């Protein structure tokens, strides 16, 4: 789950990373009393989860005389379709130089990947493609307590030495918070020292409970409902509902729909042990999406009981046609149950998908 900037900024600050003085504001009236602390110039940053926030007018430089007017405008704005409900007001930083620093998960080395460049404030992915030498990288096993000095020398080159301790603090944040990504872009040099002018922190969804986070805000309401049943669910834009067991097989089913020029409405992986009740909930959940015109169920397993699955589909009793491919134990029995109730049972996933695409044409 991605934390909001002000949440990440607070965590960075608590770990000794210098951050600008800032206040979270939810209404225009809250700004007045804070103006004395923010100084002659300050920055209003909309707390919205979209990329390119600055270019879309979500970051404004203000002063005590125009601050409230700009804030009012910001609260009325939509940044790339997202309404502004919270604004972070931070002191203005006199930027002399911009850096970029991040720590992420490296799948290839199975270690933490530290990235640093003295050409910050840009899109790091673009910089890495256009000028790969400008981005310095180092891999660090999570068994380490600190970034070793040689690695800091390699990363920083001739950049400010005090950034070394900031990188070490960032590594501590990364470890303590079960982060998938801890990023400062830009990290800035000012006449008063180095500051994190922005903060990004993504927490591992599998570690949310031990991080004390009870609600995953990244999920839509239907995705959260699905999570309660132990399903993986992703909303898509088409009209063919999809239920599969196992992420790979479900993805392959979506791909096959696309191959036959259909459009999937969702991805739903019921997970292991698909019994009558789980299948019923899954079918109901997918059918509740008004754009779904037909549902494909593609279940394959050694231990999946086809008769249970068949009863689950029937007990859901949804309006849309359900096309089924089932393989596992008690296959014949499952087939009999479905055939008797007017559902269509297919021999292969390919046949099932073709039939579904035909059905919506």
């Amino acid at each position: 789950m991605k934390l909001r900037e002000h949440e990440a900024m607070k965590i960075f600050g608590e770990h000794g990373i210098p951050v600008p003085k800032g206040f979270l504001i939810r209404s225009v009236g809250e700004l007045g009393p804070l103006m004395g602390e923010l100084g002659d110039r300050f920055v209003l940053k909309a707390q919205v989860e979209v990329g390119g926030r600055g270019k879309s007018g979500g970051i404004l430089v203000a002063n005590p005389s125009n601050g409230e007017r700009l804030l009012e405008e910001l609260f009325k704005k939509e940044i790339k379709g997202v309404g502004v409900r919270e604004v972070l007001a931070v002191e203005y930083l006199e930027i002399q130089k911009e850096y970029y620093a991040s720590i992420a998960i490296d799948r290839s080395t199975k270690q933490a990947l530290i990235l640093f460049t003295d050409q910050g404030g840009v899109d790091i992915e673009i910089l890495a493609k256009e000028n790969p030498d400008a981005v310095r990288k180092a891999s660090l096993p999570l068994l380490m307590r600190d970034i070793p000095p040689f690695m800091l020398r390699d990363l920083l080159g001739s950049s400010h030495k005090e950034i070394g301790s900031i990188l070490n603090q960032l590594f501590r944040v990364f470890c303590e918070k079960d982060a998938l990504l801890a990023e400062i872009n830009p990290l800035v040099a000012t006449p008063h020292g180095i500051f994190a002018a922005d903060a990004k922190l993504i927490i591992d969804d599998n570690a949310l409970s031990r991080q004390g986070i009870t609600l995953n805000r990244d999920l839509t309401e239907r995705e959260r409902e699905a999570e309660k049943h132990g399903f993986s669910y992703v909303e898509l834009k088409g009209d063919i509902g999809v239920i599969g067991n196992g992420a790979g097989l479900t993805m392959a089913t979506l791909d096959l729909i696309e191959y036959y020029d259909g459009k999937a409405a969702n991805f739903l992986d019921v997970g292991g042990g698909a019994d009558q009740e789980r299948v019923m909930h899954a079918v109901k959940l997918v059918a509740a999406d008004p754009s779904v015109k037909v549902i494909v169920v593609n279940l394959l397993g050694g231990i999946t009981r086809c008769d249970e699955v068949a009863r689950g589909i029937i007990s859901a009793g949804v309006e849309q046609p359900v096309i089924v491919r089932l393989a596992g134990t008690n296959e014949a029995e499952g087939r009999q149950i479905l055939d008797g109730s007017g559902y269509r049972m297919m021999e292969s996933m390919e046949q099932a998908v073709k039939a579904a695409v035909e059905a919506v044409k």
Partner: protein
Amino acid sequence: MIYGDRSTGVIVTGATGKQGAFHIALMNEYARKVGGVGVVAGVTPGKAGQEVAGVPVYNSIRDALKKHDASASVLFVPGFAAGDSIMEAASAGLSLVVAITEHIPVHDTMRAISYARIHGCDVIGPNCPGLLSPGEIKMGIMPVHLSSRGHIGVISRSGTLTYEIVDQLTRAGLGQSTIVGIGGDPVIGQTFRDVLRRFEEDDQTKAVVILGEVGGSLEEEGARATDLPIAAYIAGISAPPEKRMGHAGAIIEGGEGDARSKIARLRDMGVPVASRPSEVPRLIREIL
């Protein structure tokens, strides 16, 4: 066969849970059928003295090893404890851990894999169905009835998609040497490259199917490092960016790891990539 054979003794950790008990029985049913050693002991802290599916349970792997010969463990412990369980197995001297568990915090996985490497222990998974060498050994949860013994290696990030492909290979008369589910998490122990290296040293394996999906670039890294004939299928061509498609590792991030560019890179290396799962047997025949 790779990673193990009929003579490999297996310890199951998380033995007394529903999953553990159920799969000990299935693994030993298979071991009896092929004349193998199978699961010799179970481990659940605090449950020593119990018996699960005919197998004695111990408090620790060390305790189990005092009474039994084993070199591998298959673990079914819950996510929050699985990293610990991997390290326990490595520390006790086992050479292989097959981690079936899903939802392990990725930092735990990274620490456990680093620790296991120091002890010379290989980790398959986590979030995987384990492995099956038809006629030799099953370590994990793969259904055995779809497979048949032969010369095709299979490496996959997925579970049921693997069974789908194995079923199609078997129907096409293409038996399998070993089927390895390497796991759907972003960080996994044995990668495509590691398993391909094992297959290179395995006389039984003549060609390998790589079943990949969106996220990362482990498929390409594996394909680049091997001389074996390989064919691939990559799931997730229809996956939207920045969305996790069921597996923690199946996500297109920062414009990287999407299926189309993965497929293009594989084809550039001369690896045939199937557009549909049903094309895999034909592609394998062409490279044999």
